[in-house]
Protein backbone atom coordinates (compact mmCIF):
# COMPACT_ATOMS: atom_id res chain seq x y z
CA UNK A 1 0.00 0.00 0.00
CA UNK A 2 1.16 3.53 -0.78
CA UNK A 3 -0.15 6.91 0.27
CA UNK A 4 -0.35 10.23 -1.53
CA UNK A 5 -0.82 13.36 0.56
CA UNK A 6 -1.98 16.17 -1.70
CA UNK A 7 -2.33 19.84 -0.84
CA UNK A 8 -3.07 23.04 -2.67
CA UNK A 9 -1.81 26.45 -1.64
CA UNK A 10 -5.31 27.88 -1.80
CA UNK A 11 -6.44 25.49 0.94
CA UNK A 12 -3.94 26.74 3.47
CA UNK A 13 -3.55 30.36 2.41
CA UNK A 14 -5.00 31.49 5.76
CA UNK A 15 -2.04 29.92 7.60
CA UNK A 16 0.42 32.06 5.62
CA UNK A 17 -1.55 35.11 6.66
CA UNK A 18 -2.00 34.29 10.35
CA UNK A 19 1.21 32.40 11.09
CA UNK A 20 3.74 33.57 8.52
CA UNK A 21 6.69 32.05 10.37
CA UNK A 22 5.61 28.47 9.92
CA UNK A 23 5.04 26.39 6.80
CA UNK A 24 1.36 25.34 6.81
CA UNK A 25 2.23 21.66 6.61
CA UNK A 26 4.43 22.08 9.68
CA UNK A 27 1.74 23.90 11.64
CA UNK A 28 1.96 22.43 15.14
CA UNK A 29 -1.01 20.61 16.61
CA UNK A 30 -0.21 19.84 20.22
CA UNK A 31 3.48 20.43 19.51
CA UNK A 32 3.51 17.99 16.62
CA UNK A 33 3.66 19.22 13.01
CA UNK A 34 0.44 18.65 11.07
CA UNK A 35 2.17 16.59 8.39
CA UNK A 36 3.41 14.12 11.00
CA UNK A 37 -0.17 13.23 11.96
CA UNK A 38 -0.87 12.35 8.33
CA UNK A 39 2.33 10.35 8.02
CA UNK A 40 1.44 8.49 11.24
CA UNK A 41 -1.98 7.69 9.83
CA UNK A 42 -0.47 6.50 6.54
CA UNK A 43 1.79 4.16 8.51
CA UNK A 44 -1.16 2.91 10.57
CA UNK A 45 -2.96 2.21 7.30
CA UNK A 46 -0.04 0.03 6.24
CA UNK A 47 1.80 2.33 3.84
CA UNK A 48 5.42 1.65 3.06
CA UNK A 49 5.84 4.73 0.89
CA UNK A 50 4.33 8.19 1.10
CA UNK A 51 4.47 10.95 -1.49
CA UNK A 52 3.68 14.55 -0.63
CA UNK A 53 2.21 16.54 -3.48
CA UNK A 54 1.76 20.27 -3.46
CA UNK A 55 1.38 23.11 -5.92
CA UNK A 56 3.46 25.35 -3.64
CA UNK A 57 6.91 25.12 -2.13
CA UNK A 58 7.87 22.07 -0.09
CA UNK A 59 11.43 23.07 0.80
CA UNK A 60 10.84 23.47 4.55
CA UNK A 61 8.77 20.28 4.72
CA UNK A 62 11.48 18.39 2.89
CA UNK A 63 14.15 19.69 5.25
CA UNK A 64 12.05 18.59 8.22
CA UNK A 65 10.82 15.19 7.01
CA UNK A 66 13.82 14.32 4.79
CA UNK A 67 13.46 10.90 3.16
CA UNK A 68 11.14 9.47 5.81
CA UNK A 69 13.76 7.11 7.25
CA UNK A 70 12.92 8.27 10.76
CA UNK A 71 9.48 6.68 10.32
CA UNK A 72 10.83 3.71 8.42
CA UNK A 73 9.07 4.64 5.18
CA UNK A 74 10.09 6.03 1.80
CA UNK A 75 9.05 9.65 1.62
CA UNK A 76 9.14 11.52 -1.67
CA UNK A 77 7.90 14.86 -2.96
CA UNK A 78 6.38 16.05 -6.20
CA UNK A 79 4.54 18.99 -7.69
CA UNK A 80 0.97 19.13 -8.85
CA UNK A 81 -1.00 21.58 -10.89
CA UNK A 82 -3.60 23.58 -8.92
CA UNK A 83 -6.41 22.17 -11.08
CA UNK A 84 -5.42 18.51 -10.88
CA UNK A 85 -8.13 16.02 -10.01
CA UNK A 86 -7.41 12.81 -8.09
CA UNK A 87 -7.34 10.95 -11.40
CA UNK A 88 -4.76 13.42 -12.76
CA UNK A 89 -2.66 13.08 -9.61
CA UNK A 90 -2.61 9.32 -10.00
CA UNK A 91 -1.58 9.71 -13.64
CA UNK A 92 1.22 12.10 -12.79
CA UNK A 93 2.53 9.70 -10.16
CA UNK A 94 2.00 6.49 -12.06
CA UNK A 95 5.54 5.29 -11.45
CA UNK A 96 5.19 5.83 -7.72
CA UNK A 97 1.80 4.14 -7.49
CA UNK A 98 2.71 1.14 -9.63
CA UNK A 99 0.19 -1.66 -9.33
CA UNK A 100 -0.32 -1.25 -5.60
CA UNK A 101 -3.31 -0.03 -3.67
CA UNK A 102 -3.10 3.72 -3.10
CA UNK A 103 -4.68 5.86 -0.42
CA UNK A 104 -5.01 9.51 -1.41
CA UNK A 105 -5.46 12.04 1.36
CA UNK A 106 -6.27 15.35 -0.25
CA UNK A 107 -7.05 18.69 1.32
CA UNK A 108 -5.82 20.57 4.35
CA UNK A 109 -7.83 18.66 6.90
CA UNK A 110 -7.06 16.93 10.16
CA UNK A 111 -7.71 13.19 10.40
CA UNK A 112 -9.32 12.13 13.65
CA UNK A 113 -7.99 8.62 13.96
CA UNK A 114 -7.30 6.31 16.86
CA UNK A 115 -4.01 4.46 16.95
CA UNK A 116 -5.66 1.49 18.68
CA UNK A 117 -7.73 0.58 15.61
CA UNK A 118 -6.55 -1.69 12.84
CA UNK A 119 -6.60 0.69 9.88
CA UNK A 120 -4.25 -1.55 7.93
CA UNK A 121 -6.85 -4.32 7.59
CA UNK A 122 -9.52 -1.77 6.89
CA UNK A 123 -7.55 0.04 4.15
CA UNK A 124 -6.61 -3.17 2.41
CA UNK A 125 -10.13 -4.61 2.46
CA UNK A 126 -12.29 -1.57 1.66
CA UNK A 127 -13.65 -1.33 -1.89
CA UNK A 128 -12.18 1.48 -4.01
CA UNK A 129 -13.75 4.88 -3.49
CA UNK A 130 -14.12 7.47 -0.81
CA UNK A 131 -13.26 6.38 2.70
CA UNK A 132 -14.04 9.60 4.46
CA UNK A 133 -14.84 13.11 3.42
CA UNK A 134 -15.36 16.60 4.77
CA UNK A 135 -15.68 20.04 3.17
CA UNK A 136 -12.33 20.60 1.47
CA UNK A 137 -10.84 17.21 2.23
CA UNK A 138 -11.22 13.54 1.47
CA UNK A 139 -9.57 10.16 1.79
CA UNK A 140 -9.86 8.00 -1.29
CA UNK A 141 -8.75 4.45 -1.92
CA UNK A 142 -7.84 3.14 -5.34
CA UNK A 143 -6.86 -0.28 -6.58
CA UNK A 144 -8.13 -3.72 -5.88
CA UNK A 145 -8.65 -4.75 -2.23
CA UNK A 146 -6.09 -7.26 -1.09
CA UNK A 147 -8.19 -8.71 1.73
CA UNK A 148 -11.81 -9.56 2.39
CA UNK A 149 -13.59 -7.30 4.90
CA UNK A 150 -13.57 -9.04 8.28
CA UNK A 151 -16.86 -8.97 10.21
CA UNK A 152 -15.36 -7.66 13.40
CA UNK A 153 -13.59 -4.70 11.86
CA UNK A 154 -14.27 -1.27 13.28
CA UNK A 155 -12.15 1.70 12.32
CA UNK A 156 -13.33 5.02 13.65
CA UNK A 157 -12.22 7.81 11.37
CA UNK A 158 -13.37 11.31 10.49
CA UNK A 159 -11.97 14.40 8.86
CA UNK A 160 -11.98 17.91 10.22
CA UNK A 161 -11.27 20.76 7.80
CA UNK A 162 -8.53 23.15 8.91
CA UNK A 163 -9.89 26.13 7.06
CA UNK A 164 -9.55 28.84 9.69
CA UNK A 165 -7.88 29.72 12.95
CA UNK A 166 -11.02 28.59 14.79
CA UNK A 167 -10.88 25.07 13.39
CA UNK A 168 -7.14 24.93 13.98
CA UNK A 169 -7.66 25.91 17.62
CA UNK A 170 -10.42 23.32 18.01
CA UNK A 171 -8.29 20.58 16.48
CA UNK A 172 -5.36 21.45 18.75
CA UNK A 173 -7.46 21.46 21.91
CA UNK A 174 -9.20 18.24 20.90
CA UNK A 175 -5.82 16.58 20.30
CA UNK A 176 -4.59 17.76 23.69
CA UNK A 177 -7.65 16.42 25.48
CA UNK A 178 -7.77 13.04 23.74
CA UNK A 179 -3.99 12.97 24.05
CA UNK A 180 -1.83 9.89 24.00
CA UNK A 181 -4.79 7.53 23.89
CA UNK A 182 -5.57 8.38 20.24
CA UNK A 183 -2.41 9.87 18.78
CA UNK A 184 1.33 9.56 19.11
CA UNK A 185 2.31 12.86 20.74
CA UNK A 186 5.72 14.27 21.61
CA UNK A 187 7.01 14.74 25.16
CA UNK A 188 7.64 12.77 28.30
CA UNK A 189 5.68 12.57 31.53
CA UNK A 190 4.81 10.29 34.43
CA UNK A 191 1.21 11.40 34.49
CA UNK A 192 -1.42 11.28 31.75
CA UNK A 193 -2.38 14.55 30.02
CA UNK A 194 0.93 16.09 30.98
CA UNK A 195 3.77 15.97 28.44
CA UNK A 196 7.09 17.76 28.76
CA UNK A 197 9.87 18.18 26.21
CA UNK A 198 13.60 18.29 26.87
CA UNK A 199 15.30 20.98 28.91
CA UNK A 200 12.21 22.46 30.55
CA UNK A 201 13.03 24.71 33.50
CA UNK A 202 10.15 25.07 35.96
CA UNK A 203 10.35 27.36 38.99
CA UNK A 204 9.14 25.87 42.26
CA UNK A 205 6.22 28.24 42.48
CA UNK A 206 4.83 27.37 39.03
CA UNK A 207 1.40 25.79 39.03
CA UNK A 208 0.60 23.28 36.30
CA UNK A 209 -3.00 22.29 35.68
CA UNK A 210 -3.61 19.35 33.36
CA UNK A 211 -3.94 18.84 30.45
CA UNK A 212 -0.77 20.50 29.19
CA UNK A 213 1.80 19.91 26.51
CA UNK A 214 5.14 21.67 26.82
CA UNK A 215 7.86 21.71 24.16
CA UNK A 216 11.66 21.73 24.40
CA UNK A 217 13.82 24.45 25.97
CA UNK A 218 11.00 26.11 27.85
CA UNK A 219 11.35 28.32 30.92
CA UNK A 220 8.40 28.74 33.25
CA UNK A 221 9.28 31.45 35.73
CA UNK A 222 8.02 32.18 39.24
CA UNK A 223 4.31 31.95 40.04
CA UNK A 224 3.33 31.26 36.44
CA UNK A 225 0.13 29.24 36.01
CA UNK A 226 0.12 26.85 33.07
CA UNK A 227 -3.14 25.24 32.07
CA UNK A 228 -5.63 23.79 32.02
CA UNK A 229 -5.49 23.12 28.28
CA UNK A 230 -2.25 24.89 27.52
CA UNK A 231 0.01 24.01 24.62
CA UNK A 232 3.42 25.61 24.98
CA UNK A 233 5.80 25.27 22.02
CA UNK A 234 9.59 25.04 22.07
CA UNK A 235 11.98 27.84 23.02
CA UNK A 236 9.30 29.66 24.97
CA UNK A 237 9.64 31.77 28.12
CA UNK A 238 6.60 32.35 30.32
CA UNK A 239 7.65 35.14 32.63
CA UNK A 240 6.75 35.73 36.25
CA UNK A 241 3.15 35.63 37.43
CA UNK A 242 1.70 35.08 33.98
CA UNK A 243 -0.99 32.53 33.27
CA UNK A 244 -1.66 30.55 30.11
CA UNK A 245 -5.02 28.83 30.00
CA UNK A 246 -6.85 27.17 27.08
CA UNK A 247 -4.24 28.70 24.81
CA UNK A 248 -1.56 27.82 22.34
CA UNK A 249 1.87 29.43 22.52
CA UNK A 250 3.92 28.90 19.37
CA UNK A 251 7.64 28.19 19.26
CA UNK A 252 10.07 31.03 19.98
CA UNK A 253 7.57 33.17 21.84
CA UNK A 254 8.11 35.22 24.95
CA UNK A 255 5.17 35.85 27.27
CA UNK A 256 5.99 38.80 29.52
CA UNK A 257 5.29 39.31 33.22
CA UNK A 258 1.83 39.54 34.77
CA UNK A 259 -0.07 38.54 31.64
CA UNK A 260 -3.18 36.45 31.36
CA UNK A 261 -3.43 34.48 28.14
CA UNK A 262 -6.84 32.81 28.09
CA UNK A 263 -8.30 31.25 24.96
CA UNK A 264 -5.67 32.75 22.66
CA UNK A 265 -3.00 31.75 20.21
CA UNK A 266 0.32 33.51 20.79
CA UNK A 267 2.69 33.41 17.86
CA UNK A 268 5.88 35.47 17.93
CA UNK A 269 4.70 38.93 18.81
CA UNK A 270 1.08 38.34 17.70
CA UNK A 271 -1.75 37.42 20.02
CA UNK A 272 -4.69 35.96 18.13
CA UNK A 273 -8.25 35.38 19.16
CA UNK A 274 -9.24 32.09 17.49
CA UNK A 275 -12.95 32.86 17.67
CA UNK A 276 -13.04 36.26 16.02
CA UNK A 277 -9.76 35.95 14.12
CA UNK A 278 -8.63 39.30 15.52
CA UNK A 279 -4.99 39.72 16.39
CA UNK A 280 -2.93 42.29 18.21
CA UNK A 281 0.81 42.90 18.32
CA UNK A 282 2.57 42.39 21.65
CA UNK A 283 5.30 44.97 21.99
CA UNK A 284 8.20 43.85 24.10
CA UNK A 285 10.02 46.98 25.26
CA UNK A 286 12.97 44.90 26.43
CA UNK A 287 13.82 43.85 22.89
CA UNK A 288 17.09 45.60 22.19
CA UNK A 289 16.93 45.54 18.43
CA UNK A 290 14.87 48.71 18.28
CA UNK A 291 17.08 50.73 20.61
CA UNK A 292 19.47 53.09 18.93
CA UNK A 293 21.74 55.77 20.18
CA UNK A 294 19.64 58.86 20.11
CA UNK A 295 19.60 62.43 21.26
CA UNK A 296 17.35 61.42 24.12
CA UNK A 297 20.32 60.03 26.03
CA UNK A 298 22.19 63.32 25.92
CA UNK A 299 19.20 65.56 26.05
CA UNK A 300 19.58 68.82 27.92
CA UNK A 301 16.43 68.53 30.11
CA UNK A 302 17.65 65.22 31.41
CA UNK A 303 21.05 66.68 32.31
CA UNK A 304 19.48 69.68 34.00
CA UNK A 305 17.15 67.53 36.13
CA UNK A 306 20.00 65.19 37.05
CA UNK A 307 22.24 68.14 37.98
CA UNK A 308 19.51 69.75 40.12
CA UNK A 309 18.84 66.52 42.03
CA UNK A 310 22.59 66.00 42.44
CA UNK A 311 22.88 69.50 43.96
CA UNK A 312 20.08 68.67 46.41
CA UNK A 313 21.84 65.45 47.38
CA UNK A 314 25.20 67.23 47.77
CA UNK A 315 23.57 69.69 50.13
CA UNK A 316 21.59 67.04 52.03
CA UNK A 317 24.55 64.73 52.61
CA UNK A 318 27.17 67.41 53.15
CA UNK A 319 27.02 67.26 56.96
CA UNK A 320 27.00 63.42 57.27
CA UNK A 321 29.82 63.30 54.74
CA UNK A 322 31.98 65.94 56.43
CA UNK A 323 31.60 64.06 59.75
CA UNK A 324 31.90 60.44 58.60
CA UNK A 325 34.50 60.71 55.84
CA UNK A 326 37.43 61.86 58.02
CA UNK A 327 36.47 59.35 60.70
CA UNK A 328 36.41 56.44 58.26
CA UNK A 329 39.52 57.64 56.46
CA UNK A 330 41.49 57.85 59.69
CA UNK A 331 40.13 54.51 60.88
CA UNK A 332 41.21 52.83 57.64
CA UNK A 333 37.65 51.89 56.68
CA UNK A 334 37.62 54.21 53.64
CA UNK A 335 39.87 53.09 50.82
CA UNK A 336 40.04 55.09 47.66
CA UNK A 337 42.03 54.40 44.50
CA UNK A 338 42.06 56.24 41.17
CA UNK A 339 40.57 54.41 38.22
CA UNK A 340 39.69 55.20 34.67
CA UNK A 341 36.15 54.52 33.46
CA UNK A 342 34.63 54.55 29.99
CA UNK A 343 32.86 57.78 29.20
CA UNK A 344 29.54 58.17 27.43
CA UNK A 345 31.45 59.24 24.34
CA UNK A 346 33.16 56.51 22.35
CA UNK A 347 36.94 56.19 22.92
CA UNK A 348 36.92 58.64 25.84
CA UNK A 349 37.58 57.86 29.47
CA UNK A 350 37.09 59.71 32.74
CA UNK A 351 39.02 59.42 36.00
CA UNK A 352 36.75 58.42 38.86
CA UNK A 353 37.82 57.37 42.33
CA UNK A 354 37.05 53.76 43.16
CA UNK A 355 35.90 53.83 46.79
CA UNK A 356 35.72 50.82 49.06
CA UNK A 357 34.11 51.21 52.50
CA UNK A 358 34.54 48.45 55.05
CA UNK A 359 31.04 48.41 56.53
CA UNK A 360 31.98 46.54 59.71
CA UNK A 361 31.49 49.54 62.03
CA UNK A 362 28.36 51.59 62.70
CA UNK A 363 29.80 54.73 61.06
CA UNK A 364 30.77 52.79 57.95
CA UNK A 365 27.32 51.15 57.81
CA UNK A 366 25.66 54.60 57.91
CA UNK A 367 28.04 55.86 55.21
CA UNK A 368 27.18 52.95 52.94
CA UNK A 369 23.45 53.30 53.66
CA UNK A 370 23.61 56.98 52.70
CA UNK A 371 25.69 56.12 49.61
CA UNK A 372 28.45 58.47 50.80
CA UNK A 373 30.98 56.35 48.94
CA UNK A 374 29.52 57.94 45.78
CA UNK A 375 29.40 61.46 47.17
CA UNK A 376 32.32 62.72 45.06
CA UNK A 377 30.67 61.42 41.90
CA UNK A 378 27.71 63.75 42.45
CA UNK A 379 29.95 66.66 41.44
CA UNK A 380 30.53 65.00 38.07
CA UNK A 381 26.75 65.04 37.58
CA UNK A 382 26.69 68.79 38.19
CA UNK A 383 29.31 69.26 35.47
CA UNK A 384 27.30 67.02 33.13
CA UNK A 385 29.94 64.33 32.73
CA UNK A 386 28.03 61.66 34.63
CA UNK A 387 24.33 60.94 34.87
CA UNK A 388 22.71 60.68 38.26
CA UNK A 389 21.25 57.34 37.23
CA UNK A 390 22.29 55.33 34.20
CA UNK A 391 24.57 52.43 33.34
CA UNK A 392 27.07 50.95 35.75
CA UNK A 393 30.38 52.69 34.84
CA UNK A 394 32.65 50.32 32.95
CA UNK A 395 36.37 50.17 33.72
CA UNK A 396 38.55 51.33 30.83
CA UNK A 397 41.61 49.54 29.52
CA UNK A 398 39.97 46.19 28.89
CA UNK A 399 38.72 44.85 25.63
CA UNK A 400 35.00 44.75 26.40
CA UNK A 401 32.16 43.58 24.19
CA UNK A 402 29.83 45.88 26.16
CA UNK A 403 31.93 49.01 25.53
CA UNK A 404 30.03 52.07 24.28
CA UNK A 405 31.35 51.51 20.77
CA UNK A 406 29.54 48.20 20.50
CA UNK A 407 26.35 48.63 22.50
CA UNK A 408 23.25 50.61 21.57
CA UNK A 409 22.98 52.51 24.87
CA UNK A 410 25.54 53.43 27.54
CA UNK A 411 25.38 56.38 29.93
CA UNK A 412 27.51 56.00 33.07
CA UNK A 413 25.75 57.11 36.23
CA UNK A 414 26.29 57.53 39.95
CA UNK A 415 23.53 55.02 40.49
CA UNK A 416 22.59 52.35 37.99
CA UNK A 417 19.13 51.45 36.80
CA UNK A 418 19.88 47.86 37.73
CA UNK A 419 20.21 48.93 41.36
CA UNK A 420 16.73 50.40 41.20
CA UNK A 421 15.18 47.10 40.06
CA UNK A 422 14.00 44.45 42.46
CA UNK A 423 15.84 41.52 40.99
CA UNK A 424 19.51 40.75 41.32
CA UNK A 425 21.52 43.30 39.43
CA UNK A 426 24.03 40.90 37.98
CA UNK A 427 25.23 39.84 34.55
CA UNK A 428 22.99 40.01 31.54
CA UNK A 429 19.82 40.93 33.45
CA UNK A 430 21.44 44.12 34.75
CA UNK A 431 22.61 45.11 31.27
CA UNK A 432 19.16 44.54 29.79
CA UNK A 433 17.46 46.57 32.53
CA UNK A 434 19.93 49.43 32.14
CA UNK A 435 19.54 49.59 28.37
CA UNK A 436 15.77 49.40 28.64
CA UNK A 437 15.61 52.39 31.00
CA UNK A 438 18.15 54.33 28.97
CA UNK A 439 15.87 54.05 26.00
CA UNK A 440 12.52 54.49 27.72
CA UNK A 441 12.88 56.58 30.87
CA UNK A 442 12.47 60.35 31.09
CA UNK A 443 13.85 62.92 33.57
CA UNK A 444 10.83 62.53 35.89
CA UNK A 445 10.93 58.74 36.04
CA UNK A 446 14.67 59.03 36.63
CA UNK A 447 13.99 60.85 39.93
CA UNK A 448 11.75 57.99 41.07
CA UNK A 449 14.35 55.43 40.04
CA UNK A 450 17.11 57.32 41.90
CA UNK A 451 15.01 57.15 45.08
CA UNK A 452 14.40 53.44 44.47
CA UNK A 453 18.09 52.76 43.93
CA UNK A 454 18.97 54.78 47.01
CA UNK A 455 16.50 52.80 49.16
CA UNK A 456 17.72 49.48 47.75
CA UNK A 457 21.28 50.36 48.74
CA UNK A 458 20.18 50.51 52.38
CA UNK A 459 19.80 46.75 52.26
CA UNK A 460 23.22 46.14 50.84
CA UNK A 461 25.51 44.22 53.13
CA UNK A 462 28.58 44.14 51.01
CA UNK A 463 31.06 46.95 50.48
CA UNK A 464 31.63 48.76 47.22
Amino acid at each position, binding site marked *: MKTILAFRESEYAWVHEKFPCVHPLLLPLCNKPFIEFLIDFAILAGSSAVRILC*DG*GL*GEVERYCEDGSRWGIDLSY*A*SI*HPDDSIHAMLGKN*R*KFCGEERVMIVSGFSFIRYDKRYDYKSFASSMPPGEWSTCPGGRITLTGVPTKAVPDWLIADLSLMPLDSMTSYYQASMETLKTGESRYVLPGYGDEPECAFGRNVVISKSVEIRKPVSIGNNVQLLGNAIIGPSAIIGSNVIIDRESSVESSIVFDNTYIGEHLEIIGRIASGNRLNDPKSGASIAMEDPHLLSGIKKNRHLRSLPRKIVHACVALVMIAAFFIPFIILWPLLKLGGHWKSSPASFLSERTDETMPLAKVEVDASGAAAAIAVALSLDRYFRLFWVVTGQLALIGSTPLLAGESRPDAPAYVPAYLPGVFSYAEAEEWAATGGDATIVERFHLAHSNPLTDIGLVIKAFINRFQEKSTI
Partner: protein
Amino acid sequence: MTITETSKIGIAILSLYGTLDALSAPELRNNRSIIDPEKTVVIDLQQVDFIDSSGIGAIVSASRQKRQPSGGIVLACMNDRVRKVFEITNAQKLFHIFDDTTAAVDFASSRQSASA
Protein backbone atom coordinates in the same frame (compact mmCIF):
# COMPACT_ATOMS: atom_id res chain seq x y z
CA MET B 1 24.13 19.01 -22.84
CA THR B 2 22.86 16.28 -25.13
CA ILE B 3 19.31 16.14 -26.44
CA THR B 4 17.94 12.84 -27.67
CA GLU B 5 14.69 13.08 -29.56
CA THR B 6 12.30 10.17 -29.98
CA SER B 7 8.64 10.02 -30.91
CA LYS B 8 5.74 8.01 -29.55
CA ILE B 9 2.18 8.13 -30.87
CA GLY B 10 2.97 11.44 -32.53
CA ILE B 11 4.41 13.06 -29.41
CA ALA B 12 8.02 14.19 -29.44
CA ILE B 13 10.04 13.12 -26.40
CA LEU B 14 13.17 15.14 -25.72
CA SER B 15 15.50 13.47 -23.26
CA LEU B 16 18.02 15.90 -21.85
CA TYR B 17 21.39 14.79 -20.49
CA GLY B 18 23.86 16.92 -18.56
CA THR B 19 23.70 20.58 -17.70
CA LEU B 20 20.93 22.91 -18.78
CA ASP B 21 22.42 26.37 -18.34
CA ALA B 22 23.04 29.58 -20.28
CA LEU B 23 25.44 27.77 -22.58
CA SER B 24 23.16 24.88 -23.48
CA ALA B 25 19.77 26.60 -23.25
CA PRO B 26 19.85 27.92 -26.88
CA GLU B 27 20.22 24.35 -28.09
CA LEU B 28 16.91 23.46 -26.45
CA ARG B 29 15.28 26.72 -27.50
CA ASN B 30 16.18 26.13 -31.15
CA ASN B 31 15.08 22.51 -31.23
CA ARG B 32 12.76 21.81 -34.17
CA SER B 33 9.98 20.25 -32.07
CA ILE B 34 10.14 23.09 -29.61
CA ILE B 35 9.83 25.74 -32.31
CA ASP B 36 6.80 24.04 -33.89
CA PRO B 37 3.78 25.67 -32.14
CA GLU B 38 1.47 22.79 -33.03
CA LYS B 39 3.61 20.02 -31.63
CA THR B 40 3.20 18.76 -28.09
CA VAL B 41 6.53 17.87 -26.53
CA VAL B 42 7.44 15.78 -23.52
CA ILE B 43 10.74 16.79 -21.91
CA ASP B 44 12.40 14.05 -19.90
CA LEU B 45 14.55 15.67 -17.19
CA GLN B 46 15.73 12.50 -15.45
CA GLN B 47 19.36 12.87 -16.52
CA VAL B 48 19.69 16.62 -16.02
CA ASP B 49 22.26 17.07 -13.29
CA PHE B 50 22.14 20.86 -13.16
CA ILE B 51 19.66 23.49 -14.22
CA ASP B 52 19.88 27.24 -13.76
CA SER B 53 17.60 30.19 -14.47
CA SER B 54 18.55 30.16 -18.16
CA GLY B 55 17.51 26.52 -18.35
CA ILE B 56 14.19 27.27 -16.66
CA GLY B 57 13.82 30.26 -18.99
CA ALA B 58 14.35 28.04 -22.04
CA ILE B 59 11.63 25.61 -20.91
CA VAL B 60 9.21 28.44 -20.04
CA SER B 61 9.82 30.20 -23.37
CA ALA B 62 9.33 26.88 -25.16
CA SER B 63 5.97 26.58 -23.44
CA ARG B 64 5.03 30.09 -24.58
CA GLN B 65 5.73 29.22 -28.19
CA LYS B 66 3.10 26.52 -28.10
CA ARG B 67 -0.49 27.00 -29.09
CA GLN B 68 -1.56 25.42 -25.79
CA PRO B 69 0.71 27.10 -23.22
CA SER B 70 -0.16 24.78 -20.35
CA GLY B 71 -0.23 21.56 -22.32
CA GLY B 72 2.24 22.13 -25.14
CA ILE B 73 5.22 21.20 -23.00
CA VAL B 74 4.87 18.33 -20.53
CA LEU B 75 7.68 17.56 -18.12
CA ALA B 76 8.58 14.08 -17.00
CA CYS B 77 10.87 12.27 -14.56
CA MET B 78 12.05 15.35 -12.79
CA ASN B 79 14.82 14.51 -10.34
CA ASP B 80 15.11 16.19 -6.92
CA ARG B 81 17.76 18.70 -8.00
CA VAL B 82 15.65 19.95 -10.87
CA ARG B 83 12.42 19.85 -8.85
CA LYS B 84 13.92 22.08 -6.17
CA VAL B 85 14.90 24.71 -8.74
CA PHE B 86 11.39 24.63 -10.18
CA GLU B 87 9.95 25.03 -6.67
CA ILE B 88 12.20 27.96 -5.80
CA THR B 89 11.20 29.78 -8.96
CA ASN B 90 7.56 28.69 -8.60
CA ALA B 91 7.71 27.47 -12.19
CA GLN B 92 6.14 24.12 -11.29
CA LYS B 93 2.73 25.76 -11.48
CA LEU B 94 3.19 26.43 -15.19
CA PHE B 95 3.63 22.81 -16.19
CA HIS B 96 2.11 19.38 -15.89
CA ILE B 97 4.82 17.25 -14.31
CA PHE B 98 4.82 13.44 -14.47
CA ASP B 99 7.06 10.92 -12.80
CA ASP B 100 6.83 8.60 -15.77
CA THR B 101 7.44 9.31 -19.47
CA THR B 102 4.72 6.94 -20.66
CA ALA B 103 2.13 8.68 -18.49
CA ALA B 104 3.34 12.03 -19.77
CA VAL B 105 3.03 10.86 -23.37
CA ASP B 106 -0.50 9.57 -22.71
CA PHE B 107 -1.46 12.90 -21.21
CA ALA B 108 0.14 14.87 -24.06
CA SER B 109 -1.56 12.68 -26.62
CA SER B 110 -4.98 13.18 -25.02
CA ARG B 111 -4.38 16.94 -24.95
CA GLN B 112 -3.28 16.99 -28.57
CA SER B 113 -6.27 15.00 -29.77
CA ALA B 114 -8.64 17.13 -27.69
CA SER B 115 -7.31 20.33 -29.25
CA ALA B 116 -7.31 18.91 -32.78
